[in-house]
């Protein structure tokens, strides 16, 4: 236990970097995901095809490989803004198709009858979208989206293997120094991760329940 307390500043620094990665990659993936999702439901065929291929390829590539590319090969191409930024780029790219899929499934999940009803009482395209479809779609999108961000929070740990000092990196460093208290140290790191993931999961569950009642 003393190993944990002694190294608390190191843990907190790692935790801060984990949160930083989560925020940076989360925002990036959200924006990129919106673009991809918009391309996937757009009437323009070529955009749709591009977005589909992008989604399939990125979704079937291991995150480790993506981050390997960012950490080893991008600097080789003389693009090296620092490992933290590189890891954030990798996580953004890796997470964006999942965001896009969550968004798309939300919009597709709104029943066709809703839009038909709105059209038949004479609402215009804009009114249909903003008063009928979007309010329902956003509600349905939020829980899966939160789940994507939970996964992202866990995925930031992979960045720790590629020269970023976040929680997992902190765990590796501290366990190297204090080989006698490995269990306590790793459990402490696990608790830090759970601090992020469990509340997010509870929020997602709450919203899911609310939506289920409404539908």
């Amino acid at each position, binding site marked *: 236990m003393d190993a944990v307390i002694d190294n608390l500043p190191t843990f907190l620094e790692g935790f801060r970097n984990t949160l930083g990665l989560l925020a940076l990659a989360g925002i990036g993936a959200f924006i990129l995901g919106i673009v991809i999702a918009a391309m996937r439901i757009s009437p323009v065929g070529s955009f749709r095809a591009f977005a589909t291929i992008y989604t399939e390829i990125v979704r079937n590539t291991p995150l480790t490989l993506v981050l390997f590319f960012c950490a080893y090969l991008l600097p080789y191409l003389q693009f090296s803004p620092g490992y933290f930024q590189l890891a954030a780029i990798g996580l953004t790219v890796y997470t964006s198709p999942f965001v896009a899929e969550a968004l798309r499934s939300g919009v597709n999940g709104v029943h066709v009858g809703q839009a038909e009803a709105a059209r038949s009482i004479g609402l215009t395209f804009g009114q249909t979208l903003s008063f009928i479809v979007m309010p329902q779609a956003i509600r349905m999108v939020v829980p899966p989206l939160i789940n994507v961000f939970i*996964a992202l929070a866990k995925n930031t*740990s992979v960045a720790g293997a590629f020269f970023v000092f976040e929680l997992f990196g902190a765990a590796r460093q501290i366990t190297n120094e204090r080989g006698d208290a490995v269990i306590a140290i*790793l459990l402490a790191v696990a608790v830090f991760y759970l601090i992020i993931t469990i509340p997010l999961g509870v929020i997602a569950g709450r919203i899911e329940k609310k939506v289920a009642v409404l539908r």
Partner: protein
Amino acid sequence: MTSVLYDVPGPKARARSRVISVFGIVLIVAALIALVVVLGLPKASANGAVQPGLWDASRWDVFNDLQVWRTLGIGALNTLRMAAVAAILALVIGILFSFGRASENAWVRVPTTVILEFFRGMPVLLMMLFILLVFSTGSFWAGVAALAVYNGAIIGEALRAGIKALPSGQREAGLAIGLTPIATRFRIEFPQAFRQMLPIIIAQLVVLLKDTSLAFVVGYNELLRSGNYNLSQFFGNRYSFSFFFIVLAIYLAMNLSLSWLARVIARRTGSNGGGVKPTGSTAPPSKPADPNLIYSNALGAQSTAGGVV
């Protein structure tokens, strides 16, 4: 659904959409070609030495060496071996978890729930490190155990959701004909739930296959380590891009074929599946769909997390 949002496009709108589409193709293709050309240009490094472009033959000649392909093959086999062992164990653990969570005895149910939440909220990588350091199992078993426990927890949740979505008449009928509660669960409920959840389980196995690459970090000689790391250390930086492309292609081939299998099975079990009518909002949609979509619907809130890692 998009077609309901606005009137059916007339000839003008369709022509416009076609023009945009052609324009889009040109734009995308041009961007890709530009990328390829830029990567192919010879580039000067910081100290002034000029290196050949990425498509230059001198960067690809290693692949004439049979030994390189052998190393890659062994790496891929190691990846598949880890995935296979971990998948079997994950299924077993998942079944155990689902029984624990659906148990009527609170002494079983509550601890199982807590353990499950704990495992699902933790990064697989941390679990691997934990098992490696605490049990000193060696990298293969550390990877297998972590993957099995993590994915087992998620498969367990899927199976539980499947059991919960069954009509309660199934269980009552089993009990009524004199089966014990355990026999009812095994012989009546579980086969139906398993079938219903098969697409989700296979989607999770794709995730497992992808996640074997995490064992790279704990030092297991799988495809990523042997292909990208060992080989490019051995042959030098010059070839690192070539190795990256080959490893990426192998991974994509493995994962896409498994994803494709998942989709085929989803279609087959979805349309004329074993007569189980889902009830309630937690049930998977009866129409076949992308396993990932079924996944989020079926498991409720916290579950999709796993499908993403």
